[in-house]
C-alpha cells in the first residue's frame, strides 16, 4: 500500500544536459554523479601554455604515458561527488570519534601491556609521514591528471590520507604524548629500519608521470602497507595480545582501504583493458615499484611482527600479486 500524493506535473523539455546525454546515448535522467563529473574539466581551445610546464597544455592527456581514447571511461564505483563523499566520511568519522571517546573515557590506553603499546607506537607513529606523502601524491594526481572522472576521486583520496595522518597523530597522543610524535619523526628521518620506506616515499614525490604515481602510491604501496599494518599487525597481532583498544581507534584505516581499493582496482582495470600497451606499461610499473616496496616494507614488517614477519609478509605480497593479476596486469 502506498499513499497517493500528487504534485503539479509539467512535462520537461529534456532530462539532462546534452554532453551527459551524449555519454548516456540518449536524453534520459542522469545521476548527480554523472552531471557533476562528465566533461566538467575544460578540454578545448585552451588559452595559454602553463609557465610551470610549457611543454604541455594546461589540461593535457600527455602528462602520462597511459593512453586513453576517452578519459571519462573511468568510473568511480562509489559514485562519489562532493556531497556523497563528505556524507560517507562524516558517518565514518562519527564512528571513529565514538571509538576514541570510548577508549579515552574508560582510560583503556592505560590497560595496554606496555611493550605492546610500545610496539604499536613504533609502527604507527612514523606512518603519519607516509600518509602525508600519500596526501601530496594524490593532490598531484588531481592537479596534473586528465579528466574529472579520475582527478576528482584523487582529491578525495588526498584528503582521506590527510585524515589518516591526523588519526595516527591522535593515536600517538592517546597512547603517549606529543614527545612521542617527535620521537617518531626522528625515527622516520634517522632510524635505519624506516629509511627504505622514506626513500620510496621521496622517490614518488618527484615522479612526473601522474599515472605511474597512481600505481606506485595507491596500488602498490597502499596495497601492501594497509594489509600488513592494519590487518596483520593491528587487527590480528595487537588485538590478540590484549590491544583491542588500539584496533578500535585504528578501525577507520582498514575500512577505508577496503572501500578505496574498489576505486583503485576499477581505475587500473579500465586503463589496462583499454589496450595491450597500457596493460604492459601498468604491469611494468607495478613490478618495478613492487620490488622497491617489498624491500622498503620488510624492516617495517619485522618491527611489527618480529620473527613471524617473513611468512606473514609473504602472504601479503602473494595476495597483492593475485589482486594485480585479476586487474589484468601480467606481472
Amino acid at each position: 500500500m502506498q499513499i497517493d500524493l500528487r504534485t503539479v506535473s509539467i512535462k520537461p523539455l529534456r532530462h539532462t544536459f546534452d554532453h551527459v546525454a551524449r555519454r548516456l546515448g540518449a536524453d534520459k535522467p542522469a545521476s548527480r554523479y554523472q552531471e557533476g563529473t562528465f566533461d566538467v574539466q575544460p578540454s578545448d581551445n585552451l588559452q595559454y601554455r602553463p609557465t610551470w610546464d610549457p611543454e604541455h597544455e594546461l589540461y593535457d592527456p600527455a602528462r602520462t604515458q597511459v593512453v586513453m581514447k576517452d578519459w571519462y571511461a573511468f568510473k568511480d564505483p562509489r559514485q562519489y561527488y562532493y556531497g556523497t563523499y563528505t556524507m560517507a566520511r562524516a558517518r565514518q568519522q562519527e564512528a571513529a570519534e565514538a571509538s576514541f571517546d570510548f577508549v579515552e573515557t574508560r582510560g583503556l590506553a592505560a590497560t595496554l601491556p606496555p611493550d605492546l603499546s610500545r610496539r604499536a607506537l613504533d609502527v604507527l607513529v612514523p606512518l603519519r609521514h607516509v600518509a602525508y606523502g600519500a596526501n601530496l601524491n594524490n593532490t598531484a594526481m588531481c592537479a596534473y591528471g586528465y579528466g574529472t572522472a579520475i582527478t576528482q576521486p584523487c582529491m578525495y583520496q588526498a584528503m582521506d590520507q590527510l585524515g589518516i595522518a591526523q588519526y595516527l597523530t591522535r593515536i600517538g597522543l592517546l597512547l603517549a604524548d606529543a614527545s612521542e610524535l617527535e620521537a617518531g619523526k626522528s625515527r622516520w628521518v634517522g632510524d635505519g629500519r624506516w629509511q627504505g620506506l622514506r626513500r620510496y616515499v621521496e622517490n614518488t614525490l618527484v615522479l612526473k608521470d601522474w599515472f605511474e604515481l597512481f600505481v606506485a602510491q595507491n596500488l602498490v604501496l597502499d596495497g601492501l602497507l594497509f594489509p600488513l599494518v592494519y590487518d596483520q599487525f593491528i587487527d590480528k597481532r595487537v588485538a590478540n595480545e590484549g590491544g583491542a583498544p588500539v584496533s578500535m581507534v585504528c578501525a577507520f584505516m582498514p575500512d577505508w582501504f577496503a572501500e578505496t581499493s574498489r576505486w583503485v582496482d576499477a581505475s587500473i582495470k579500465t586503463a589496462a583493458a583499454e589496450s595491450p600497451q597500457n596493460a604492459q606499461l601498468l604491469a611494468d610499473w607495478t613490478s618495478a615499484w613492487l620490488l622497491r616496496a617489498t624491500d622498503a616494507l620488510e624492516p617495517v614488517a619485522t618491527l611489527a611482527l618480529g620473527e613471524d614477519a617473513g611468512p606473514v609478509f609473504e602472504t601479503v605480497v602473494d595476495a597483492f600479486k593475485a589482486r594485480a593479476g585479476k586487474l589484468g596486469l601480467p606481472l
Partner: protein
Amino acid sequence: MDMNAKKKLGLKEKYALMTRNLGWETTYEPMDKVFPQMDYEGIRIHDWDKWEDPFRLTMDAYWKYQAEKEKKLYAIIDAYAQNNGHLNVTDARYINALKIFLSAVPSLEYNAHRGFARLGREMRGVGPQVACQMQAIDEIRHAQTQIHSLSNYNKFYNGFHDWKHMNDRVWYLSVPKSFFEDACTCGPFEFIIAIGFSFEYVLTNLVFMPFISGAAYNGDLGAMTFGFSAQSDEARHMTLGLEVIKFMLEQDPANLPIIQRWIDKWTWRGVRLLTIVAMLMDYMLPKRVMSWKEAWEVYFEENGMALFNDLARYGIKVPDCAALIKKEKDHISHQAWNAFYTAGMITNFHTWLPSEDEMNWLSSKYPDSFDKYYRPRFEYYRQREKEGKRFYNKTLPMLCQVCQIPMLFTEGDDPTLISYRQIEHKGDKYHFCSDHCQHIFEHEPEKYVEAWLPAHQIYQGNCFAEGADPTAPGFDPLKSVLDYWHLDFGRDNLDFEGSEDQKNFAAWRQQATTN
C-alpha cells in the same frame, strides 16, 4: 599511564601537530626537486614556519561540517525541484541570468579547484599546502552544487543544455575562460594573488551580490541556497587570500614590487570580467538588488579601500586602474547590455529592451549618464522594433587581446569615443580596450599572443560545424558557427519576447495556479 598527567595541548599546538609537523626535510631527493615551482617567479620565502594558519580545521571536523551543509542544501534543491519552484521566480526574464551563470561560473570554480590542487601540492610549507587543498576540494563542491542546482532549470528552459561545450567555444565565454586559464597557467604565487586575493578577497562580494542576492530578490530559492551554503567556505577562502599576501610581504621586501604588479594586473582583469555582472545587475534582474554603481561604491570604493589602507603599511598601493574604474562605473553596464542586445542572435540567452519603468530606474541610479547617452539608444532600438526592423549586429566584434571583451568601452573622459589601443609586436598588430590591458600584454607578450580569440578563430575558419565545407555553394557561415557552438537557433537566442521560454513559463504558471 595516567591520562590526566599529560600536558594539555593548546588548539594551535595541536593543529600544528596535525599539519606542519607531518612534513620533513627530504634527503633522498632534494627539496628543490620535490617543490620545483617555488623559485621561478622571483618570490623569496625564508621561513615557512612563520606561516599563520588562517583557520584550523582538521579533516574529521571538515567532513562533519561540510556533510551537514550538503545534506541541507540537497534537501532544499530536491524540494525546490519537486515543487516546481522555478515557476515562482519574479519573471521568466530572470532565468536568463542563470544561463549566463551556468555557462560561465562552474567552469571557473572547476579551474580554481585544479589550480588550488596544484598549490596544495607545490607550496613548500605544510600549513599553506593544507589550506590550499581544502580550498581545492571546496571549489569542486561549488562547481557541482551549481550544476546540480541549475540542472532542474535545464529540464524546462532553453540555453542551459550544453553549457560545458559552450564554455569552451562561445565568443563571450572566452572572457571568463581566459581569465581563469590565465591564472592557472601562472606560477603558484601569482595564482594565489590572482584568485585567492584579488578575486576572492577584493571582488567576491561583487560576484555574489547579483547572483545570490539577485536570486534571493527574485524568488529563486534554488540558486540562493547554494550561494548561502557556499558563504562559510568563501569566508575561509578570503582569510586564506589575506594571509597569503601578508605572509609574502613579510618574508622579504623584494617581494613587494612583484606583488604590487600582480595586484594591479588582477584587479584590472577582475574588474573587466565583472562587466557582465554589472550588466546583469542593471538589466537582467527583474527585481534589482542595487545598481552596479552602488555595489561598486560599497564593495570596492569603501570596503576595498579599507583593505588597501590596511596593506599600506607593507607599501602596497591602490591599483592605478581604480581611477579609470571610477569614471567607467557610470557606463559599463549600459555599454555591455547594448552590445549583448545587438548580438542577440549569437547568445545562448535572450535579450530585451528595458521597459519604461526600468529605464526610469536606470535614470535615477545613473543621473549623469543614462538619459544623456544610453536612453536615446534604447529608444531608437524600440522604434526599430516597432517598425519590424529589430537591429542585430551581423559582424563580429574586434576583441581586446587581453580581456577578450569586444571593443565596447569608451574613453574615461569621453563616453562618445571608443577606447582603442594598438601596438605592434614581432610584426603583428594587437588591439586593446585600455591602457591597463595593453600594459599587461607588454609585460608578458609571449603569453598573451597565445590567446584563443573567438572572433579571430571564426574568421580563420576554425569554428565551423564538424564536417562543414565552407566552399560548398550556399554555405551559411553564421549557421555553421552556431552549429559548432551547439546553439539552437530560435530557441536559445533572439528576443525574450515571443520566445519558447516566455510562452512555456506563462502556460506552466497558469497550469500551476489555476484550475
